[in-house]
Each structure stands twice: as structure tokens, then as C-alpha cells.
């Protein structure tokens, strides 16, 4: 069974349709990159996976749990799905290490010392041990995003969702974040990544999904997508973002 199953999902804001009949799946250990022009619904789709955005029709199943079902304990489900946001969204009033422990303590009920130890280990892993007692506002964007990834990992997630993790970063900081993500992929983490970083997609993605107008237009193995995209829309998109 797939880790994430998305079946015929539709979503509307009032009468405006943002997702139309989206179906795909992410297998355990797979890295799937979602790309497409802005407004194509890719961020909305990924937020539907952990129910940060509701959807009106269809079904999403994460590790056997139906996200849309009313009986589902959403906090419990979300605690198992790591998420990284475009604008980092660290908690500005907490030190870096507190950002990494609060979820473990308040949601998972881990003892504080244990949570702190794990947090510091993860911080070392993303190369930011020296920043443990600083506050998010004192870090660069790239550093903040690495902390955000560490925060998501502190919950021992079964899969990770990335919503344009590098698009708010200065160009020179993009690689430090992508490096962490590449490493994570190499360790076998199941990942669904909304990004325009085609270099990242080429390097680690198993599959690439291309969205346009709320629909999944292409859902291909990486080599097929880059070598021979079927839809004209994807060809245009690739032509634009690969040759600038």
C-alpha cells in the first residue's frame, strides 16, 4: 500500500475550482516532485495531504488513515507527517532548541531532556549546533529553513511534505537547504516536494508531477518527464524554466 494515496480530489473556494480530479500516490521511500506554474494548485494539493486545506470531494489516505474522514484524529495524523513551509514558520518567540522540542514534549509527550537531546542531535545534523540558543529572527533564511526541517524530523515523521521550501530564499542559500533534502532522500525518507528546483528533481526525484489549472497534467517517472514530456503545457513550462 502506498504511503500517500490521493484519489479523485476536488476542491473549490466558493465557486472557484482549485483542484480538479487529482489522483496520484507516493510509495514508501519514494521522492515525488510536484511542479507547475503559480496558481496551478500544487501548494493547495500538498496542504490537503495533512488536511491543512480541506477538500470537498475525493479521498486522501496517508499510511492507511483517511485524511478527510470525520472520525480521523487530525492532530495525531499530522504529528506523523512532517511539513516544511515556504516561509519557514519557526515560532519566533522560542529559541531554536525550543522550536525543536516543543512538538516532541507537547504532542508526543516525550520527557523534556530526551526531547532536547534529540533536538540538539538534529541541529547538529543540519549543521547548526552553534545556533541552538538563538532565536529564529537572528538566523538567515537558509538557516531557518534547515531548522524547520529539523523541527519536522524531531517528530519522527513517516513522510515529509515540502511546500516550496527554497522559493523564499536568497539564491546563495538555496543549496544549503537542498543539500539537507538530498541527504534526507538518500536515507530513504518518503517525500512529496513542491518545488521549481529542477536540479533537485533530476538528482533525487523518482517521479515528477506537473500540474496546471488545478489538474495533474503529467505524472511520470523522472526520466520520462525530463526526456519526453507528453503534454505541450509541460514542454512549454520546462522550456521556460530550464533555459533562463
Amino acid at each position, binding site marked *: 500500500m502506498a504511503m500517500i494515496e490521493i484519489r479523485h480530489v476536488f476542491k473549490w473556494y466558493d465557486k472557484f475550482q482549485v483542484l480538479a480530479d487529482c489522483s496520484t500516490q507516493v510509495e514508501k521511500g519514494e521522492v515525488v516532485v510536484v511542479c507547475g506554474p503559480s496558481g496551478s494548485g500544487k501548494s493547495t494539493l500538498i*496542504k490537503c495531504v*495533512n488536511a*491543512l486545506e480541506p477538500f470537498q470531494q475525493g479521498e486522501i489516505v496517508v499510511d492507511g488513515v483517511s485524511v478527510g474522514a470525520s472520525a480521523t484524529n*487530525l*492532530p*495525531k495524523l*499530522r*504529528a*506523523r*507527517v512532517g*511539513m516544511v*513551509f*515556504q*516561509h519557514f*514558520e*519557526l*515560532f*519566533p*518567540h522560542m529559541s531554536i532548541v525550543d522550536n525543536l522540542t*516543543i*512538538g516532541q514534549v*507537547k*504532542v*508526543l509527550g516525550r520527557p523534556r531532556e530526551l526531547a532536547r537531546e534529540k533536538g540538539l542531535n538534529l541541529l547538529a545534523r543540519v549543521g547548526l549546533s552553534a545556533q541552538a540558543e*538563538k*532565536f*529564529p*529572527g*537572528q*538566523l538567515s533564511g537558509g538557516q531557518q529553513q534547515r531548522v524547520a526541517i529539523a*523541527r*519536522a524530523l524531531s*517528530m519522527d515523521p513517516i513522510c515529509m511534505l515540502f511546500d516550496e521550501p527554497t522559493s523564499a530564499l536568497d539564491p546563495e542559500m538555496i543549496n544549503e537547504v537542498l543539500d539537507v533534502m538530498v541527504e534526507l532522500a538518500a536515507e530513504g525518507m518518503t517525500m512529496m516536494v513542491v518545488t521549481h528546483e529542477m536540479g533537485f528533481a533530476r538528482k533525487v526525484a523518482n517521479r515528477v508531477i506537473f500540474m496546471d489549472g488545478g489538474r495533474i497534467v503529467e505524472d511520470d517517472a523522472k526520466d520520462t518527464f525530463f526526456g519526453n514530456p507528453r503534454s505541450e503545457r509541460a514542454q512549454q513550462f520546462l522550456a521556460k524554466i530550464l533555459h533562463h
Partner: protein
Amino acid sequence: MNYHWNWGIYFQTVQAGEETYLDWLISGLGWTLAVALTAWLIALAMGAVMGTLRTLPGRAPLAIGNAWVEVFRNVPLLVQLFLWFFVVPELLPRDLALWVKQDMPAKEFVTAAICLGLFTSARIAEQVRAGIQSLPRGQRMAALALGFTLPQAYRYVILPMAFRIIIPPLTSEFMNIFKNSSVAFAIGVLELTFQARQMQEDSEQGIETYLAVTVLYFLCAFLANRGMAFIERRTRVPGFIAAGK
């Protein structure tokens, strides 16, 4: 001006009794502080709750929060005080009404603190709502994505930041609550304004009386302001609001 100045009046004993006028003023100041600080606790608690309700999903919480703010903000404070004192007890069940009217301890004080607290809570609710809405929407999402329930998201992420943001308007409210507590004299709380009227009538030294009272209110509000400034410095988030320092 044909006024008989007497700057020693504060240390003279009152017409009928052993106390000095200064004793009256100090006792009045004590009740003023008691009313204001009790009301402040009520105002903060209810303001946080009602302000939060107005930011929750769904129509019912919003409606309750809106109604709360409109009711307490649109009726004059003095009228509210009389409503609480004279009208509300009549609306209670008979036994409770009897107890409130006859046996409730410090009835005037309790009424004044509740009235002023709820009046101020409506204003704080507005500020809390504005503070919450000024936070990036992603903060709530990040908290929920981490597995927090909505109450946990408010408790650990949203409200701590919202309250930091609204410290400047909260400071004004905290200062106002000392000044507004003066209406409590109208239902017989023996606070500073009440004691001032009593002292003026008793001593016939109006200028000295109201000068002292003015200074005491000024000090209350001034110290409230300094206290909030201290809290603002202590809770400042490094690197978050760069302005100032």
C-alpha cells in the same frame, strides 16, 4: 483669590475621628488599586477568550465574541455600573438575588471590579483579535502541522506572539483601568475619588484635596506605564521586532 491655603491639612485629624486626612487618602488609594487590579485580571482573561473566539473558524464563536464586544463597548461605563448594581441583582433567581443584596461580602467592590473588568475586556478583545490577525497565517498552519490541537496552537504559538504585539495598546488599557476605577465611587466604593469628595467636604480644602488625588492617580497611571514598558523589554523577541533596539 481669597483662598485659605493649608498645606498641613493632610496630617490633621478629620472632624469626627482619630484618623488623619492622609489616612483617608491612603485607604482610598488601596481600594482604587484593589478595584483596578482585580478588574485588570478579569479584563485580561475575558479579553483573551473573547478576542480568540473572534478568530476561530465557524460562525458561533465569532457571533459570541462580536456580541460581547458590542454590548460592553457601546454602553457608557457609568451606566453599566448602575446596571450591574441595581438591575442585574433583580434578574437573578430569588434566593441568589437576596444573598447578593444582603449578604454578599464587599458587594460594592465586587460589582465595581466585575463591571470595570468586563467593560475593559471588550476593548482588550478587540486588541487580541487584531494581534492574532496580524500574525502570518502560516504560524497557525505550522503549529497544526506539528500535531498541535487548535487550543494548543493558541496556547503555545499564537497567543504568546499576539500578546507581545499588542503590549502598546494594552498599556493604554492598563492605565485607563486605574483612571476609570474612579466611577466606582458612584455605588459607594470607598476608593480614591470617594475619599476625595469626603475630604473636601470635611476639610473645606478643595484645592489641596484634589491636588493630592490628581498626583496619586497620575502616579498609578505612570507606574502602570513603566511596569508595562518593563514587561515589553523582558518579553522582547530577539531579532523579531528590530525597531527600538
